[in-house]
């Protein structure tokens, strides 16, 4: 029986697990996928917004500001990238300039460094900035991170400190158990080898407290224990998460990326608009659009969505090196129906805590969400008689991963001499060695799929998109996981990468009669 069960291991679930792993209590995190960070965390703008944008008095405003201030230290401690690249919010014409000054005023009020620059001056610093831009709001504290690497590092550290991670576990039912002190019995299906293939095992765990951090599925999970999905305050509103799709283009990494800081247009009604974002890995993201969808797995790109991004990016960029596009993707924001984050204990189900509707600025707020949940939402009484928050005396830090590109020549050669696999480049686009790929599989919360390797160490993220290195990665994964090559999955369990291997090639062949 766990003190806390976290449902969902996106950036929010991972921060929650990490926060709780510092204290003397037992916790587990479950996810239906075979990896952490598979939903919105895998597909978003990757920005730590400075925090001037959310409306006054909201949780979004408070937690964004707090979260943004914590990020740099957190990333440094976890050895994951964090770049304070700064941002320009670009206004064209008087109307937009008015909004810009309003944003400037809010930034100042909240203690965020900000200044207003002339369009021409800004273009000296960002040569690709649109010539229509007349004024920009410069925010030097805007930063970028790698959301999935951050999530994975947080979970790795949580696991090192006792959190149990249950992947491939889909929550199918939640029973309330007032007796025995345990409040919940959670039923799950385990999807090893894929649901379709009939490999479904069942599992049950018990927990005193549930943290519902299931992203776009928060309302469904809440519905398992409280069909009315009641929220605090206004009893008329029932929790509803309406996924809102955002589509993006990715530009290849270049010696000198097209933009060196985040370029926002002046925000509109449906969000922050279409941005240009330099990533921590030297790529540039263009997007997102913003459209409501009913499909919670609707991360498909659409012709209209991509067209919209192409059209709207012109607000901030004069020209776009379209030939450098290497990928497009789409993500779903978990948009709640209250206008703010929904972070509260259920008024109907004591001990069931919703951490829902974490749309933008969710990534920026995530560290503050975790501390807010622990300090203000979780009550000692929830864990039974005599519970007090006690910090662990010893806290195990995550080992910094070997990133060959970042080492000095001497360090590199020392590494290769000790372990020659660090000298064998598998991914020629991103220059990733076999040793780094092996590390990404062997470490706690290691990769279990081609996509898992790609998320952790980036082979396949480059301009060839895996065309050259994928067979090699399949071989390494099979060897490291002790499975056959045809059992290696691209992403989700049970989805075969190949149709046939070697000896089975002969099955289902055509015969001459077909000619």
């Amino acid at each position: 029986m766990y003190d806390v069960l976290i449902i969902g291991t996106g950036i929010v679930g991972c921060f929650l697990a990490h926060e709780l792993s510092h204290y003397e209590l037992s916790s587990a995190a479950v996810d239906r996928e075979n990896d952490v960070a598979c939903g919105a965390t895998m597909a978003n703008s990757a920005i730590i917004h400075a925090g001037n944008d959310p409306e006054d008095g909201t949780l979004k405003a408070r937690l964004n500001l707090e979260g943004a201030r914590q990020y740099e230290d957190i990333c440094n401690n976890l050895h994951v990238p964090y770049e304070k690249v700064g941002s320009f919010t670009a206004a064209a014409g008087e109307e937009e300039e008015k909004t810009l000054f309003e944003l400037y005023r809010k930034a100042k009020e909240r203690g965020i460094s900000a200044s207003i620059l002339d369009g021409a001056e800004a273009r000296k610093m960002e040569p690709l900035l649109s010539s229509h831009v007349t004024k920009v709001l410069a925010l030097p504290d805007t930063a970028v991170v790698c959301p999935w690497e951050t999530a994975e590092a947080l979970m790795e550290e949580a696991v090192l400190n006792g959190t149990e991670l249950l992947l491939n576990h889909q929550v199918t039912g939640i029973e309330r158990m007032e007796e025995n002190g345990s409040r919940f019995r959670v039923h799950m299906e385990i999807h090893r080898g894929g649901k379709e293939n009939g490999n479904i095992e069942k599992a049950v765990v018990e927990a005193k407290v549930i943290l519902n951090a299931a992203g776009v599925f928060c309302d469904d999970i809440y519905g398992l224990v409280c069909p009315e999905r009641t929220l605090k305050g206004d009893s008329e509103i029932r929790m509803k998460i309406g996924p809102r799709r955002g589509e993006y283009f990715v530009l290849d990494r270049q010696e000198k990326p097209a933009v060196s800081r985040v370029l926002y247009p002046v925000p509109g009604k449906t969000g922050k608009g279409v941005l240009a974002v330099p990533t921590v890995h030297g790529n540039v993201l263009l997007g997102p659009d913003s459209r409501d969808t009913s499909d919670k797995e609707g991360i498909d790109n659409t012709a209209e969505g991509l067209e919209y991004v192409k059209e709207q990016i012109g607000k901030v960029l004069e020209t776009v090196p379209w030939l450098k596009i290497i990928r497009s993707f789409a993500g779903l924001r978990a948009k709640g129906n209250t206008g703010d984050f929904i972070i509260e204990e259920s008024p109907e189900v004591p001990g069931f805590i919703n951490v829902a509707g974490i749309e933008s600025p969710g990534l920026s707020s995530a560290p503050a969400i975790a501390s807010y949940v622990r300090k203000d939402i979780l009550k000692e009484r929830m864990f039974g008689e005599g519970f007090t928050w006690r910090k662990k005396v010893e806290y195990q830090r995550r080992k910094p991963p070997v990133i060959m590109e970042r080492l000095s020549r001497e360090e590199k050669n020392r590494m290769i001499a000790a372990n020659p696999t660090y000298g064998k480049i598998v991914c020629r686009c991103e220059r990733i060695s076999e040793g780094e790929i092996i590390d990404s599989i062997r470490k706690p919360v290691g990769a279990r799929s081609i996509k898992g390797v790609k998320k952790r160490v980036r082979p396949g993220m480059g301009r060839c998109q895996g065309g050259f290195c994928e067979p090699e990665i399949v071989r390494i994964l099979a060897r490291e996981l002790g499975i056959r090559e045809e059992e290696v999955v691209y992403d989700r369990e049970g989805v075969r990468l190949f149709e046939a291997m070697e000896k089975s090639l002969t099955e289902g062949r055509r015969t001459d009669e077909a000619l």
Partner: protein
Amino acid sequence: MKHYELVIAGGGSAGMAAALSARREGVSSILILEQGKELGGVLLQCIHNGFGLHTFGEELTGPAYAERYIRMVKKEQIETKTETTVLHIGKDRSVTYVNSQEGYMTVQAGAVILAMGCRERPRGALSIPGYRPAGVWTAGAAQRYLNLEGCLVGRRVWILGSGDIGMIMARRMTLEGAEVLGVAEVMPYSNGLPRNRRQCLEDFGIPLYLSHTVTRIIGKERVEAVVISRVDENRRPIPGTEQEFAVDTLLLSVGLIPENALSEEAGIPLDGRTKGPSVNSAYESEIAGIFACGNVLHVHDLVDQVSREGEQAGKAAAAYLSGPQAGEAGKTMEISAEAGEGLSYVLPQRIRPGDAERDGGIEFKFRVRRSFRQAALEVRAGEALIKSVRKKYMEPSVMETVQVKWEELSHMGLFRREDGIPVLRFILREEAGRDEGDA
């Protein structure tokens, strides 16, 4: 720092041919750096036949062609490092590489030959709407899986793009038990060699849909179907022409791009048309002593052409190493070549008079923009017509060559002009002629 006269980045057909020809010209210290486990490059996975007719006078498979070169390289005792990745090339011709035995290493070269080959345009570059499921591969990746790993990536296959690798994979997968439902080509003509259309598609009754493209990929985790649409003359899909095909795999054969990440990083100027380095008539890039040949320079159709270009580059590098040439002084008096109407590129981009004089002329390589019948290729300098060659058929999928003789260049007095660099323009004119038509 270790010194080599010549370092060659890439041990495929271009690199091996360059090394052998440099050795023939007397270059003694040569180093070939190859990423793969063995020399041969992409030839090792091109198990079909059709290689070597020009080079060896017989038709070989890709691996057999590679093996002949590998033997010659071994016989010449040319130093080779495999499983070695070139990381950086400097303008000063220093070359940094990494492998498991030596770690990170920098060597100094007298001359460098770029022979890194090309890569395939991936799906991401196309922005096809839909999910990003497993089951979408470039044709070359599927070829590698099938021919080197023995694994068939799909059972029901659609192919986007009629490039040669795509068509060859259509046949390969059919032979191995897959069903290839069709090939969609966005252009109104096939992008591969006509013979591949015949023996890879027509032989097996695989339909080729010209002026069609894939407008949607269906399937969340694995490809379940593709939707193809007819396109208009601007290559935009025409609504209402959608057809859905249930397949588990989509292969992409939508173009090859010279692999120039290293060249770009080195600051070697590239030609926007070929996407490879801009070179002079000695295959030398705009950086002195750095040469380029094969698919890194421009994408070829035939390995025989690649080997020949490698030989030429190897020979030129050897000449560079042996000191200033007779023509070297003419460097300041180069002619530049430019692709005009009807051509997508012409190469070399610059001609040194010394090369043209020594070799009795220059062989220009070019591609046409669309299919031509009964066309004349004109080479002009300003208004003056230097040369005109008539051709019955020209297709974008076939690289063409034209020889311009030294006399033709010199009698125009081109190298003596003082009003800037003279420009040779290559233009295609379609002649109104008897159209023989299809019966």
